[in-house]
């Protein structure tokens, strides 16, 4: 009798082991994730009745999850408030920052400083009760998060305008018609997308002096690309405007806090930036008098004569270059002549003192 019981025990142990090995060798949900998937979330019809007649799908596409950046994580790594099954119907929002924080040991990437989201306009709006304001998952996705390097990712350069445009529909429409938007559509991923000007996680309102789009910082933000020769060469865009602006009355005035002075966007607009040749562009020769006239009421079509962004030290500045060169060489010559003149005077004094002494 005892032997029979031993046989049953060994047999069930062996069956259990085989079953475990079989489960472990499967491609499909394994480990603790299996319990979530097999019983509930693997069923495409699994849903939650949020309101009378309104349902929310609770299905998780495990295939997409396995391909995501978090494919090796357990469900409970993010859904940390699940202790036992079945779990509560109302789970807390997933806190991405529990891993994506500075100095984490989980190896979660933090290069883009995701915690800065907490200061952003989006987080501020959320804390003020605007539940539509985006959380991490609205831009990055949920179970299907892909790295920015993957062209299918919602945060791949080429897809960023579409991602932001889900909510910012009017801005998206204008951006799509702009020289930046058209270039991105054509596949030039060097052209500016939303996050190049607005930053990624620390999106701040223009009124914040720290913001990349604060009037004081606009020129610097545009200069990140527009002073980069290698980027600008691809589109035949000049890099002089950056230096020219910095040395201009506008640039200096803004630098010293006179924010009513023009910055890049005052003349070029921001979302609907158009190239000079476009008749709808504010910097088209036909429209310059109106553009300058926004601040300088006396502007006439005269302002379209000559170049706007001149760098006096470059021949492209024309007459300004020659005037600047004339004064440069005149001053250097006068400096040298007067210096020699002083030396001769001192030499003469020394000579005569010695001769007389």
């Amino acid at each position, binding site marked *: 009798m005892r032997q029979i019981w031993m046989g049953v025990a060994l047999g069930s142990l062996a069956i259990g082991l085989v079953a475990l090995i079989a489960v472990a060798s499967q491609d499909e949900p394994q480990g603790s994730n299996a319990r979530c998937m097999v019983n509930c979330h693997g069923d495409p019809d699994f849903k939650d009745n949020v309101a009378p007649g309104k349902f929310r799908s609770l299905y998780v596409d495990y295939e997409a999850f396995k391909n995501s950046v978090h494919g090796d994580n357990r469900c409970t790594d993010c859904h940390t408030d699940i202790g036992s099954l079945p779990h509560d119907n109302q789970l807390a929002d997933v806190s991405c920052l529990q891993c994506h924080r500075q100095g984490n040991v989980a190896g979660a990437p933090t290069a883009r400083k995701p915690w800065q989201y907490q200061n952003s306009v989006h987080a501020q709006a959320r804390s003020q009760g605007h539940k539509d304001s985006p959380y991490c998952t609205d831009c990055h996705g949920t179970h299907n998060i892909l790295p920015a390097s993957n062209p299918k990712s919602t945060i791949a350069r080429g897809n960023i305008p579409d991602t932001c445009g889900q909510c910012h529909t009017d801005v998206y429409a204008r951006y799509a018609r702009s020289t930046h938007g058209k270039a991105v559509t054509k596949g030039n991923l060097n052209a500016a997308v939303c996050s190049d000007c607005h930053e990624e996680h620390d999106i701040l309102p223009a009124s914040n002096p720290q913001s990349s789009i604060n009037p004081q910082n606009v020129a610097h933000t545009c200069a990140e690309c527009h002073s980069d020769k290698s980027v600008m060469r691809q589109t035949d865009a000049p890099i002089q405007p950056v230096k020219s602006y910095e040395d201009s009355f506008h640039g200096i005035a803004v630098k010293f806090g006179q924010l009513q002075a023009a910055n890049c966007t005052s003349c070029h607009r921001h979302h609907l930036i158009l190239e000079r040749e476009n008749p709808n562009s504010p910097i088209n020769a036909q429209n310059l008098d109106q553009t300058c006239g926004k601040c300088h009421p006396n502007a006439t079509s005269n302002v379209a004569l000559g170049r706007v962004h001149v760098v006096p030290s470059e021949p492209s500045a024309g007459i300004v270059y020659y005037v600047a060169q004339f004064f440069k060489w005149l001053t250097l010559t006068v400096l040298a002549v007067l210096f020699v003149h002083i030396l001769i005077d001192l030499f003469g*004094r020394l000579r005569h003192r010695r001769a007389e002494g």
Partner: protein
Amino acid sequence: MVTERSGQTVERMNRQLRIQHGLLMLSVILLVLTGLALLYSGSWLGQALITLEGGFEARGWLHRVAAVLLIATAIYHVGYIVFSRRGHEEFIQLLLRGSDFKDWGAMLAYDLGRRERKPQLDRYSFREKFQYWAFIVFCVIMTMSGVVLWAFPALFGLLPKWTFDVAIAIHSGTGTLIVVVLTLWHLYIVHLQPGRFPMDGSFWHGQMPVERLKEEHPLEYDRRVAEGSIQPLRSEPASEMTEGVEDEGGERT
């Protein structure tokens, strides 16, 4: 060098000239400091100057107030030349002549040992005349280009945009040149040269020792002695230096 043993002085600048020079000095120093602040606003020097001048906007106002002072001084100076006998006489003496360039060459030759005798200079030598006329040219250029920039809101639209860029280039270029000439010519000759360092006080009290008048402006010295307005210096050997100069003067007469 000049010794001031006799204690006898002559008036080099009367009150009118001292006041005009004072106004010019004040306005030019202010213009240079506020102008350089803007020209070098990208460097620590410019930023320190702007802070010192009470901020960006205050710097602009200070520059324009100083400009008005300079223009007013220039107008007053023209009035002084036209309407005052003394001003008229001074101006005639300040007119450039061919002999000034000859004197300049002779002075260089003398310093370099190519010439034995020092050129005999009058009340206003090439040293004073060159800077006087250079400053008149500078004032005209700076006033014209400055007015174009100041009146920008009214002129914008009348003039094409490049004229303002040219005005900026002229204004900053001439401004830099003025600083160079002011330092290496005017300040060196008047204050910094050996024997005068660190400062010559005649712009304040208007007086010049007769010994220096004799050394640097011998023709005026002779004229004043002849008309009896100063006592001729005793030919006592006050120093080795004046002895040398006096010997030369003796040769000439």
